[in-house]
């Protein structure tokens, strides 16, 4: 079943993959999918084109926000122990019934696997004029946002309403790295789906969910400081997408027609906005998710 009126803004981010998994779980797919590559300098011809299923995936097999900035040589040489931590996190999400996708396959390959046709575009950001033009001409009415920075007024002023799943329970936890902040400040985690507006995580809410902090067992040696960065990446790149996708799945299961979604305004005076955690705090927060096996 195609989700009526839904434009999915897919990217290489693992969140895109998790959303596809969530929709697939329900036997659904977006009415239209646009694959977005963020490039500082777009190609001379940014006009979108339909990609056939036979098209080769040009993206390296490990998609993901953090990986995209790691030199390719480092990715190729990725240590097996790091992969083991990632796999433990993914397994923990799977065991909890969260939507999980093959994160080591590119988004394009997953689209192909699920027989979802897509168009593609290269833009520096979603505020780019070409993207605004594309959206303005799109017959869809709701766009599922994955990443691409803060949306400015021009793009928010089109007929399309953008929805975003934020990895924090609003209004309590807004801002950055909220999976971790929620764990530290509220001793629980959450995710919230809302219509985006020009505030930060202040849009009208479609759904929120809260969860216990999962305790993920990893070999004890991986609890050392040497793996702190890896533990953090594992949470951000492999666990966070699963919770976001669970909210999308729950929302679609409850009401598959976006035209019938009912949003509630947030209490804007409540809650706090969090910023990038310092590494010391970040590692402390991330450690709440892990325990070393004896």
């Amino acid at each position, binding site marked *: 079943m195609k989700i009526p009126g839904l434009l999915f803004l897919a990217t290489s981010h693992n969140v895109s993959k998790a959303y596809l998994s969530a929709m697939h779980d329900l036997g659904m797919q977006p009415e239209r999918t646009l694959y977005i590559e963020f490039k500082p300098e777009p190609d001379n011809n940014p006009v979108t084109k339909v990609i056939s299923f036979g098209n080769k995936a040009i993206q390296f097999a490990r998609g993901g926000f953090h990986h995209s900035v790691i030199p390719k040589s480092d990715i190729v040489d990725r240590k097996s122990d790091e992969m083991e931590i990632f796999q433990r996190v993914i397994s923990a999400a799977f065991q909890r019934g969260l939507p999980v996708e093959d994160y080591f396959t590119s988004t394009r390959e997953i689209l192909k696997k699920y027989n979802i046709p897509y168009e593609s575009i290269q833009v520096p950001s979603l505020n780019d004029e070409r993207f605004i033009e594309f959206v303005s001409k799109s017959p869809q009415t709701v766009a599922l946002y994955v990443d691409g920075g803060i949306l400015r007024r021009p793009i928010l002023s089109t007929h399309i309403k953008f929805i975003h799943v934020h990895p924090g329970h609003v209004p309590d936890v807004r801002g950055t790295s909220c999976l971790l902040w929620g764990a530290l400040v509220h001793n629980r985690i959450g995710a919230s789906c809302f219509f985006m507006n020009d505030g930060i995580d202040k849009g009208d809410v479609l759904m929120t969910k809260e969860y216990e902090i999962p305790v993920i067992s990893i070999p004890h040696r991986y609890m050392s400081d040497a793996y702190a960065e890896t533990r953090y990446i594992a949470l951000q790149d492999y666990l966070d997408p699963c919770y976001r996708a669970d909210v999308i799945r729950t929302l679609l299961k409850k009401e598959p027609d976006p035209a019938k979604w009912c949003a509630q305004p947030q209490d804007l005076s409540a809650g706090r*906005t*969090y*910023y*990038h955690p*310092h590494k010391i*705090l970040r590692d*402390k927060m991330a450690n709440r998710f892990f325990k070393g096996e004896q």
Partner: protein
Amino acid sequence: MLSTEPDTICDRFVSPTLAKFSSYNEVLSGLISNRPQSVEENEIRHLNDRGKELLRKGEFIITYEALVWCLESLGVSYITTKKPDPLALHFTEQLMHRYEVDKQLAETYKRDTFKPSERQCYNKKEFELFSLVLLMAYFVTEDIRFLNTLLNLQFSLEEARALCLRIVGIL
């Protein structure tokens, strides 16, 4: 930047800035009686001595005065009412917000420091005093964001940073 918004607040609240210094003893008492368990009394006392020293030798510009007001308001109101002064907290949050936004802008543009034009409102003394404000704001509110900003702060007062690290260690 830091110096613009505090103007009206300073006009309203900070005229007798230096005269307020005596209230530091009260601030100190309040902090000591409400400190986190692992924080020693003499650490806070030393920190406040350093704070006073900073304030006394400060070259007072508007931002600096605003910080003084903020620091004192937080502490004094806490002692007298057992509740943080909402306006002082709001102002502290504004400072923090601006600092974090500036920092993130610098990160976005891959700069390690602010441009000279951006730095004009931040000098070392302000950073040091700001770190005291943040630490006290944390004591009053137990809002972890104040410690996070302190950790991220350039040129923070060494003692305030050390105490912050100890608090984070026991969270």
